[in-house]
C-alpha cells in the first residue's frame, strides 16, 4: 500500500519534472529565436501614467507593423522586434535605475528615452555610460541635448520652434495684440516653453504684462485668473498638461474672461482636451510637433502619414497625437538605422542614426550635432468647430487664424 503510493508520487513528480524540463527547453528555444530587444522605461503608474499609455501605443504599433512585415532585416536575416517595458512610477530617480537594469539585467539591444525632458535627461547619463543608442520620443528642451552626449537622439525640435511661428502669425493677423499674460506650470517642459514664449514676445514687440508659475497639482486658479483679468491682456498664454489646462479654461469661462487670443500648450493637441472642453475650446490656438493632417511620403515602415493615421485608428479607435506618433517614429528610425547598418552593433547603429537624413511619416528627419532633430517644422493650429485646423506651415495649411476667445 505504502509502496504503491510512493510509486505514484514518484510517477507524478517524474512527469512534473519532465514537464518543467520541457517548458525550459521551449523557453530556451523561444529566446534562441532571433529578436531585437528594445527597452522602454515608462511612467506606467503615477501622475504621468496617461502619457505612458500614449508612448506605449506608439511603440506597440510600430512593433506590430515591423513584425507583420517579418521583422527587421539585419544582413539578410529577419529579427523580430520585442519591446521590454518597465515602470518607473513617474519618479525620475527611479527612471535612472530602471534604465540601468534594462541594460545590465534585461540585456536590451537599444533604448527608448524616458518620458519628457527631465527624466530623459537624467536617464541619458546611464545609456551614455553603457554606450547604448537611445531615441527620446518626448524630450524637447535643449538642456537635454547640450550635455555633449554621443548616444542620445531626440525627435522633438527645440521649444522655440513652437513659439516663434505662433508669435509671428499672431503679430501678422492680430496687430491689436500688444500685451500678453503668461501662466506656466512649474515643471520642466511647460516652464521652458513659457520662457521661450516670453523671449518670442519681447523679440516681436509684445509686452509681457504677467509672467507667473503655478504649482503642480494646483486645484484652483481663480485668484490668479482674476489678477490676469484685471490686467486686460489681449493674449493669454497658458502652459501645462491636459488636467491643468481644462481646469484653467473652465475657470476662465467662469470669470467671464475674454481675449483676442488664447494659446494653450500642450493640451489642445489631444482629442480628449477638445472633447472635455467642448464649446470653450473654440479658437484656442496651440502648437505641437506633429499633426495627423500632415502629408509626407515616408521611407519608413509606415510610409505615408495617412497610412500611419489609418493604422493607428484601426488599432486604437482614436486619432494619434504627436506623442504617440513620435514614439512610433522612434521605433521606425531604429529599424531604418539597424537595417542600414546591417548589424546589431551599437556603435554602427549609433553612426547610422547620426548620419540619418530621411523623410518619414512624421516629416523629414535629420539630427543636429547635439543629437536633437533639426529638420522639422512643427505645426501651429487652432481649434475651430471642435477640430484642430492647421495654420502653419503653409504647405499643410487648412484654414485661417480666427480672433476672439470668449
Amino acid at each position, binding site marked *: 500500500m505504502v509502496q504503491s503510493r510512493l510509486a505514484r508520487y514518484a510517477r507524478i513528480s517524474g512527469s512534473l519534472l519532465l514537464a518543467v524540463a520541457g517548458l525550459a527547453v521551449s523557453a530556451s528555444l523561444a529566446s534562441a529565436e532571433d529578436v531585437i530587444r528594445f527597452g522602454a522605461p515608462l511612467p506606467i*503608474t503615477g*501622475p504621468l*501614467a*496617461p502619457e505612458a*499609455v500614449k508612448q506605449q501605443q506608439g511603440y506597440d504599433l510600430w512593433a506590430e507593423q515591423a513584425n507583420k512585415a517579418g521583422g527587421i532585416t539585419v544582413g539578410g536575416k529577419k529579427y523580430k522586434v520585442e519591446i521590454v517595458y518597465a515602470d518607473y512610477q513617474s519618479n525620475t530617480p527611479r527612471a535612472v535605475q530602471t534604465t540601468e537594469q534594462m541594460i545590465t539585467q534585461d540585456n536590451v539591444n537599444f533604448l527608448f528615452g524616458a518620458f519628457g525632458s527631465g527624466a530623459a535627461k537624467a536617464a541619458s547619463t546611464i545609456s551614455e555610460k553603457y554606450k547604448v543608442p537611445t531615441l527620446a520620443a518626448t524630450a524637447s528642451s535643449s538642456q537635454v541635448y547640450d550635455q555633449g552626449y554621443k548616444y542620445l537622439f531626440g525627435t522633438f525640435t527645440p521649444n522655440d520652434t513652437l513659439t516663434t511661428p505662433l508669435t509671428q502669425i499672431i503679430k501678422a493677423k492680430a496687430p491689436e495684440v500688444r500685451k500678453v499674460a503668461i*501662466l506656466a506650470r*512649474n515643471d520642466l517642459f511647460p516652464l521652458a516653453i513659457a520662457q521661450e514664449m516670453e523671449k518670442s514676445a519681447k523679440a516681436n514687440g509684445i509686452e509681457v504684462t504677467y509672467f*507667473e*508659475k*503655478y*504649482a503642480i*497639482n*494646483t*486645484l*484652483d*486658479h*481663480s*485668484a*490668479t485668473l*482674476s*489678477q490676469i483679468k*484685471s490686467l486686460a491682456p489681449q493674449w493669454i498664454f497658458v502652459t501645462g498638461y*491636459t*488636467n491643468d489646462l*481644462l*481646469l484653467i479654461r*473652465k*475657470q476662465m*469661462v*467662469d*470669470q*467671464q474672461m475674454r481675449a483676442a487670443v488664447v494659446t494653450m500648450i500642450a493640451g489642445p493637441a489631444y482629442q*480628449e*482636451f477638445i472633447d*472635455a*472642453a*467642448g*464649446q470653450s475650446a473654440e479658437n484656442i490656438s496651440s502648437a505641437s510637433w506633429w499633426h495627423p493632417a500632415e502629408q509626407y511620403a515616408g521611407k519608413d515602415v509606415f510610409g505615408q502619414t495617412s497610412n500611419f493615421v489609418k493604422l493607428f485608428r484601426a488599432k486604437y479607435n482614436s486619432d494619434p497625437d504627436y506623442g504617440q506618433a513620435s514614439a512610433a517614429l522612434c521605433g521606425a528610425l531604429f529599424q531604418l538605422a539597424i537595417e542600414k547598418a546591417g548589424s546589431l552593433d551599437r556603435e554602427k547603429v549609433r553612426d547610422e542614426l547620426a548620419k540619418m537624413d530621411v523623410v518619414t511619416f512624421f516629416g523629414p528627419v535629420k539630427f543636429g550635432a547635439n543629437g536633437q532633430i533639426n529638420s522639422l517644422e512643427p505645426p501651429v493650429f487652432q481649434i475651430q468647430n471642435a477640430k484642430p485646423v492647421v495654420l502653419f506651415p503653409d504647405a499643410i495649411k487648412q484654414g485661417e487664424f480666427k480672433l476672439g476667445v470668449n
Partner: protein
Amino acid sequence: MLAVQVLVNALVLGCLYACIAIGFSLVWGVLNVINLIHGSFIVLGAYLAWGAYQWLGISPWYALVIAAPLFFAFGYLLQRLLLNRVISAPVLVTLTLTFGLDLILNNAMIYYFKADYRKLTLSPPTGSISLFDVVVPVDRLIATASALALTGLLYLLLRRSKVGRAIVAVRLDRDAAVLMGVDVKSIYAIAFGLGAALAGCAGVLMALIFPISTLTSSAYLGKAFVVCVLGGLGSVSGALAGGLLLALVEGIGSTLIGPAHATTLSFVLLIIFLVVRPQGLLGRKGFE
C-alpha cells in the same frame, strides 16, 4: 475691485474645501482612522455624476440623491467587513489598510474609466453671475450651497438624532460609551458610511467644477488633510473654518506673491498650526 473678487473667490472655494474635508474629518475624529481612501471616494463620486449625466441624462443634483445611499452602503460594508477587524490595532495598521484599499480602488478606476481626463459640462451651461464687476460662477455657488446644506445636515444629525449622539459619545470616550450600551462596532460602521457618503456627494459636486481624473484623488486628500489640521478634528464647524482659512491664505498668497508659492504658503500654515495650535481653530483639546 480685484481685492473683492479675490475675497469672493476664496469664500466660495473655502466652502468647496470644507465639502471635500468634512467626511475625512468625521472618520478621523470618531474612528481615529486616517482614511487614505477618501480622495478616491471623491473621484468615484465624480465619475458617478459624470456617468449618470452622460449615459442616463440624470442631472448631478439628482445624482446626489443616488450617491449618498450608495456610498453609505459601500463605506458601511468596508468598515464592517475589513476595518473593524483592525480598528484597535496601532494607527499605522489602519493607515496601511486604507492605503492598500486606496491603491485598489484607484487602479480599478484607471482600469475601467481609463486615464483620460473627463469633464462634466452641463448643457446649457450654468454660467456666472456678475455684480459690480465681481463674477461668481453659478455652479460653484450651487456647490457651495449644497456643501453648506450637507454640513448643516451632518451637524443636525450629530446633535439631534440618537445615532448622532452615539457617534459623538464614542468620539468623546469610547469605553464609557461601551458601558452605556452603545454598540461601538456598529457606530464605527455608521460613521465610516457617513464619511463615505459625504465624500461621494462631494465628488458629485466637484464633477461640475474640476476635470475628472483618478489623478486628482491625491490632491483632494491633501486638501482634506490640511483643512482638518487647520480647522480641528471631528467638529463640523471646524472643517468649514479650516476650509475658509486655507482658501483665503491660498487666494491672497497667490495674488500677492504668485501662484507658485500658494501651496507652499498653505503648508507653512499647516506646520505653524501643528506647532502652535495642534488642536486646530475649533478643535477641542483633550480628546483623541
